[in-house]
């Protein structure tokens, strides 16, 4: 199987099934009751499911909690209602307005994620939800207040009238199919992968060239659009809306639907929505206690169904994925022959980082030559990790300057440094735990600025080549969390290599590896050496460093205590003292 064919197949992926689903959905809409209670149930399920699919994007893919989906649903609904009833607009223009407003507010809400994670964001979204409800209730001149808006017309398009129940239901169903298809496909695309990377590990995502903030804002935007579309159709379906339909409680209901079904897939959210729309019918005998049972169900779902109903079904039904066959071109960087040159690719001048009164880095100078393997060593607490974090942009330096490939990157964001060609691995492994080995490495290959980043087929090839290089080709299809610690480290290295960086920073790659693994790592580094890529390796494993390094810089207490060729540095009395303590004269 050649990967080029694979890619052309991907463009139309799911389309035949979606067409079939559309036909079936329209058929179902035709045999469904054209009015009354059951029509309402179906209409509610379809429009809710569209809104819930938005939560799959923001919560499932991107890992950002949003408890305001009912507000976006409401904005879409009010767009249609106010547009058609008060301003005499057509249904679809009014819908476009509502969905547009929803998208804009979604993006603004996403801006809240700039510096805020988890619970902060939950709170911001709840605040937003409450403010929207207050407006809908109190701004009577615009929203008609608590009485709501009635007699919302249904549209006609291209001479087809959607006024009757069957036709409008069919419209909702078709929109639902399209939404499900789009969001299902999103997951395996570049954007979806970036979202999942952000969800699994923000720091690592940033150092893979992903603009974490932009991705989050995009996820919020997409989610808000889905909410808006669902709400607009809801307004047309029920032809009456009021503020209580879009309250905080409804946001919780939408969230629960997503979680119950499984937030990792739009099919999950669809299942969850159907179950929770129909559940009240089954639970009718419970009468008042229904909502209490509902609340308890939320807890039980969280405890017993972490992946939702859909996750449960997948685990039971779907077979394990197979290894990926076929040959790929070796990593292009290995085809280069490049020795160390005199050019300074990474120049560090007077770099200092103070944490309160602690000078973790106290004025470091360092020149890394293009094509060399440069080792930065030092005892524990000497400032090595701080150094890497400042150079890759995770910490802001207190003083000093970092120049990379002629560019001053002292104040650049981590993803901008990566885009300039600086890749790294982490001491405490930071793989994207929710993704497969291949997907992890693909995120690396998709570094903006990488030669093949724009072509999905080449991205797969490059990722496989990188995995082949580290010896994990056969594990490409596995979940990365299932690999051993040492192999996860190789995944990180492959992720960095797939980005075809100019320079790669390896932060204590030998940490936590056993002897055999350390030996393998040394082997791998020797194979990497001499192909023109610059390697800055931070470690305190002398054996490893001696084997591969062209230059060694030694840090102690945040200062540089030695710098030069390995043999000279390792014979330096200060270095020996730093590593072994002061020499003990009585020792033989």
């Amino acid at each position: 199987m050649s990967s080029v064919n694979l890619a052309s197949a991907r463009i139309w992926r799911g389309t035949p099934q979606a067409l079939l689903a559309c036909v079936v959905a329209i058929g179902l809409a035709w045999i469904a009751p054209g009015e009354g209670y059951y029509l309402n149930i179906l209409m509610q399920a379809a429009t809710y499911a569209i809104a819930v699919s938005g939560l799959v994007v923001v919560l499932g893919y991107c890992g950002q909690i949003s408890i305001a989906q009912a507000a976006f649903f409401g904005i879409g609904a009010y767009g249609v209602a106010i547009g058609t009833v008060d301003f005499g607009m057509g249904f679809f223009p009014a819908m476009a307005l509502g969905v547009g407003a929803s998208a804009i507010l979604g993006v603004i809400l996403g801006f809240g994620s700039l510096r805020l994670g988890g619970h902060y964001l939950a709170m911001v979204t709840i605040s937003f939800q409450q403010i929207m409800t207050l407006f809908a209730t109190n701004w009577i001149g615009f929203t008609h207040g608590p009485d709501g808006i009635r007699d919302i017309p249904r549209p006609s398009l291209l001479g087809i009238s959607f006024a009757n129940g069957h036709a409008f239901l069919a419209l909702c169903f078709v929109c639902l199919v399209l939404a499900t298809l789009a969001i299902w496909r999103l997951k395996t695309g570049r954007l979806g992968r970036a979202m999942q990377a952000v969800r699994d590990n923000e720091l690592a995502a940033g150092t893979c060239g992903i603009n974490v903030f932009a991705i989050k804002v995009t996820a919020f935007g997409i989610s808000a659009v889905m909410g808006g579309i669902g709400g607009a159709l809801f307004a047309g379906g029920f032809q009456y809306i009021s503020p209580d339909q879009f309250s905080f409680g409804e946001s919780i209901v939408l969230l629960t639907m997503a979680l119950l079904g499984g937030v990792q897939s739009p099919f999950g959210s669809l299942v969850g929505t159907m179950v929770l729309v129909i559940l009240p019918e089954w639970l009718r005998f419970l009468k008042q206690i229904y909502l209490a049972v509902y609340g308890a169900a939320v807890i039980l779902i969280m405890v017993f169904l972490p992946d939702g109903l859909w996750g449960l079904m997948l685990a039971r039904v779907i077979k394990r994925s197979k290894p990926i066959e076929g040959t790929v071109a070796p990593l292009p960087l290995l085809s280069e022959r490049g020795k160390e040159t005199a050019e300074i690719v990474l120049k560090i001048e007077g770099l200092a980082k103070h944490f309160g009164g602690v000078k973790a880095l106290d004025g470091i100078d360092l020149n890394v030559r293009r094509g060399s393997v440069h080792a930065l060593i030092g005892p524990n607490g000497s400032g090595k990790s701080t150094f890497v974090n400042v150079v890759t942009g995770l910490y802001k330096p207190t003083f000093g300057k970092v120049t990379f490939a002629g560019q001053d990157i002292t104040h650049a964001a981590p993803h901008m440094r990566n885009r300039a060609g600086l890749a790294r691995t982490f001491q405490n492994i930071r793989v994207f735990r929710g993704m497969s080995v291949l997907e992890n490495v693909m995120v690396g290959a998709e570094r903006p600025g990488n030669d093949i980043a724009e072509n999905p087929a080449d991205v797969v090839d490059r990722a496989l080549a990188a995995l082949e290089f580290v010896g994990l080709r056969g594990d490409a299809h596995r979940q990365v969390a299932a690999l051993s610690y040492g192999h996860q480290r190789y995944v990180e290295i492959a992720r960095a290599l797939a980005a075809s960086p100019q320079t790669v920073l390896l932060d204590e790659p030998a940490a936590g590896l056993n002897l055999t693994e350390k030996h393998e790592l040394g082997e791998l580094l020797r194979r990497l050496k001499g192909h023109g890529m610059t390697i800055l390796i931070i470690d305190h494993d002398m054996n490893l460093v001696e084997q591969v390094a062209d230059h060694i810089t030694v840090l102690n207490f945040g200062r540089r205590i030695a710098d030069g060729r390995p043999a000279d540095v390792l014979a330096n009395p200060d270095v020996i003292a730093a590593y072994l303590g002061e020499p003990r004269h009585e020792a033989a």
Partner: protein
Amino acid sequence: MATFLQLLFTGLGIGAIYALVALGFVLLIRAASVVNFGQGQFSMVGAYLLVVFFNVLEVPYLLSMLISVVLMAGFGVLFAGATYWPLRHRGGLPVIISTIGASIFLENIVLVLYGPSPEVLPGLFDSPGIQVGPVFMDSQYLSILVCATLLVILQYLIFEKTLLGKKLQATSQDKEMASLLGIPVALMILFTFGYSAALGGLAGMLVAPVLFVSVGMGGLIALKAFAANIIGGYGSIPGAILGGLALGVAETMGASYISVPYKDAFAFAMLLMFLMVRPQGLFGEKISEKA
């Protein structure tokens, strides 16, 4: 000026309630890294317990409060067992969602038992209040302020001056290290849940005579307490107290001088403003993840 002072007094009173609930929040955040969205329902359940003991069983007022507070502590431990314990290794989000589930559960169970019509509780004192200069000090608001002050002092003493407090602090700072030192971390976390529920419950009992005792009373209080938390500085104890007071005052003034229907919006608007401009709050530290 007289109106201003009057509003200030009322605002501080209601702000003290937010502060108490916010304290409960902070303690759980610090001890267990749990954001408990059921915190407001603690207040609601506490107030209903007081209704049961005082209105129904006719136990003397202070004794009723005492019994209710003790029961709330036990309830907090149960709550932890259901929402936190099974999910403690799965990160923040699942616990947040399960506490949301618990809050829906609690509101609706109480709704089934007590119905939607609110219950009325008398104040702690029979006297309506005292006139101090231009300000009429309502006795219940005064009680709230006094109780809140006493609780803050008590909490300070417990946390700073006792071994239990030191263990709790150790637990909140570094669970692994604390357990290596032989501190029963699980017990400390359960204790914090219990304490936090008792605090929330007491806040509910204190505010009950001012508002009404209703199923929905807790939700809004908790949202504002959480807002107070962020305004004051996430995870900061003085921040929670000052944030709560500031929010109470801002909201009362806003309602009086700007708009009554949007009273509840001021808290959220203030929160959003803080989040955008100064997300670390008044007293918070900038938190950065270790690479």
